[in-house]
């Protein structure tokens, strides 16, 4: 299982995802509408990775814990309280660029 090309199939069939704070993992999971618990590795402390996880937590879209309290989190979690993650809007970007180039 080390490195699959895509986790899309596994994600599709999962009921709950527990992941590290990598942006790709978080976003892919949330976009498929799966509940997500993000586990922070205190020892790695790559601050920039944490920014997105923290924000998603503030927005109520993910649950958040570290390795030592993962079990507790799993026992007390309320997945129904998680808010849906609205998709990004690349059309706004296209619109903006069109204006820049006078294409609108």
């Amino acid at each position, binding site marked *: 299982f080390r490195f699959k090309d895509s986790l899309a199939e596994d994600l599709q069939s999962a009921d709950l995802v527990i992941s590290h704070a990598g*942006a*790709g993992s978080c*976003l892919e999971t949330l976009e498929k509408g799966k509940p997500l618990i993000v586990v922070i590795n205190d020892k790695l402390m790559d*601050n*920039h*990775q944490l*920014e*997105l996880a*923290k*924000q998603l937590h503030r927005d109520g879209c993910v649950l958040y814990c570290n390795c030592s309290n993962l079990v507790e989190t799993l026992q007390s979690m309320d997945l129904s309280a998680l808010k849906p993650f*609205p998709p*990004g*809007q*690349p*059309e*706004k*970007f*296209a619109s*903006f*660029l*069109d204006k*820049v*180039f006078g*294409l609108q």
Partner: protein
Amino acid sequence: TGGHTTEILRLLSCLSESYSPRHYVLADSDKMSEAKIRSFEQKRAKTYSKSQFTLDRIPRSREVRQSWISSVVTTLYSILYSLPLTYKRKPDLILCNGPGTCVPVCLSAFLLGLLRIKRTIIVYVESICRVETLSLSGKILYYFSDYFIVQWPDLKKKYPKSVYLGRIV
């Protein structure tokens, strides 16, 4: 690289065929992006049959956590390497979103602009991962880009010259 490629292809997804031909520039060490790009372009060609794109590679300008001093040297080397490529393509628009690879390409285009050889519009979109702080590429290109787009409001506050359109990927 990886996440950057995925993000940038999403940015491209809604662009019309006015933004053509597309010239992709990758780091020589990037193994995965080429497949993603070809797949994107193949799909696109089904809707826009005359769609065109090219792929070029340049030496990677900086490894993750590479030291400051050696980064300056490798980046300078990458800028010199990028100049003939940028000169050849003379793009009207450079769109980038943060991998180290984009800095030399943008700086080479900026230089060609100063030399009045070609005026390229540089649009930088900071990654969605950047909520509170800018990446190093972002910090540099904030001063060299024509439009600097951020995806979270905190960054708009910290970098007032940036453009905030909400989440776009």
